[in-house]
């Protein structure tokens, strides 16, 4: 930053900080994430924020200082909203602009100073956006992995009979995963009958039905039979109303009926001992 701008900010340091504090002190109201934060903690954070920001700007570093970065990361990690930081930076920019305008600079000079300031704040914006998107991406990928692990378990219940309970919405990606798991598992357990339980699938539309039919066809190709179980009344209604043809493979209302059918198919029977 050129020396004039530097001088102006340094000179008006106190008034900038004061005005900034004033504007930011209202921020806490109306932010849901900040309602449980005490006033004192919030004001302390504000002070820390403006001190570090001021140090960053007046020190004229190209890159973000470790202290400021550390402050940003901490704020995000404890769950404060991202716009606390963006608001803080914008307020700083606005306040400083006011201070610059109050000085007797000609237009060109004032613009030059403002431009320099704007650029240096821009760098901070980039830094924080990058950091938060990175954190979010990480979180999402971790959650995705966790979801996949829970996604399509295959449970052998009797010799040659396997159950795959499905819970939650099925999208294309998950359907692919389900099909792969289903086929690999059916071969691994040497299943003759595979029961797909859709009790936990909230909505069965044409796409979901299509995926299930495809899975059932694939299971037939590798040499096992597929029974669709857990068809709730509302699901039966949607299936018929949408004109989906499930007549190609057997369906049952619940897992119990499905297992009975599967036992029959594999020439097995459960008997009560007298």
């Amino acid at each position, binding site marked *: 930053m050129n020396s004039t701008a530097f001088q102006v900010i340094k000179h008006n340091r106190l008034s900038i900080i004061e005005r900034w504090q004033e504007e930011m002190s209202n921020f806490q109201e109306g932010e849901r994430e900040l309602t449980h934060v005490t006033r004192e903690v919030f004001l302390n954070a504000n002070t820390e924020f403006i001190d570090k920001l001021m140090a960053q700007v007046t020190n004229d570093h190209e890159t973000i200082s470790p202290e400021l970065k550390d402050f940003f990361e901490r704020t995000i990690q404890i769950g404060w909203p991202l716009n606390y930081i963006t608001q803080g930076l914008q307020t700083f920019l606005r306040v400083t602009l006011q201070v610059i305008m109050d000085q007797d600079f000609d237009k060109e000079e004032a613009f030059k100073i403002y431009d320099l300031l704007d650029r240096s704040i821009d760098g901070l914006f980039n830094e924080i956006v990058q950091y938060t998107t990175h954190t979010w991406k990480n979180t999402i990928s971790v959650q995705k992995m966790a979801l996949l692990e829970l996604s399509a378990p295959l449970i052998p219940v009797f010799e040659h009979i396997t159950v795959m309970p499905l819970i939650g919405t099925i999208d294309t990606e998950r359907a692919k995963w389900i099909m792969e798991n289903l086929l*690999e598992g*059916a071969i691994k357990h*040497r299943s*003759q009958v595979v029961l797909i339980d859709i009790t936990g699938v909230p909505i069965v539309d044409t796409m979901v039905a299509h995926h299930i039919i*495809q899975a059932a*066809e*694939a299971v*037939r*190709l*590798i040499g096992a039979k597929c029974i669709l179980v857990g068809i709730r009344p509302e699901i039966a209604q949607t299936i018929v109303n949408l004109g989906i043809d499930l007549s190609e493979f057997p369906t049952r209302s619940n897992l119990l009926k499905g297992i009975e059918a599967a036992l029959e198919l594999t020439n097995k029977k459960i008997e009560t001992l007298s």
Partner: protein
Amino acid sequence: MRIPILKLHEYLLISIQMELDDMTALQFQEDLLNKIHDTGARGVVIDLTSVDMVDSFIAKVLGDVVKMSNLMGAKVVMTGIQPPVAITLIDLGIVMRDVPTALDLEQGLDKLQQELEV
């Protein structure tokens, strides 16, 4: 290169262990039908355990072989279709609905026996 066809009592066993190209598939179709004619076999098991790629033409030929064999009085069961193959076939829209399938050779023979008994 021809695909070997083995005779076991009244069944014919075929294990396809090579890359199936169009020529080989057609040759196989002819060989199998001749063999059925020669031996009077009542059942055929085609094992695809070591096949990892089936295109639409091969799928059609295999489906045809099944129908032709049925015409000649021999029941056919396909066994050991691998998951990737099954997924490819489904993606291509080939369901081979009339072809009986089984998990492996053992279950395939059981299935044949059941169907022939009826």
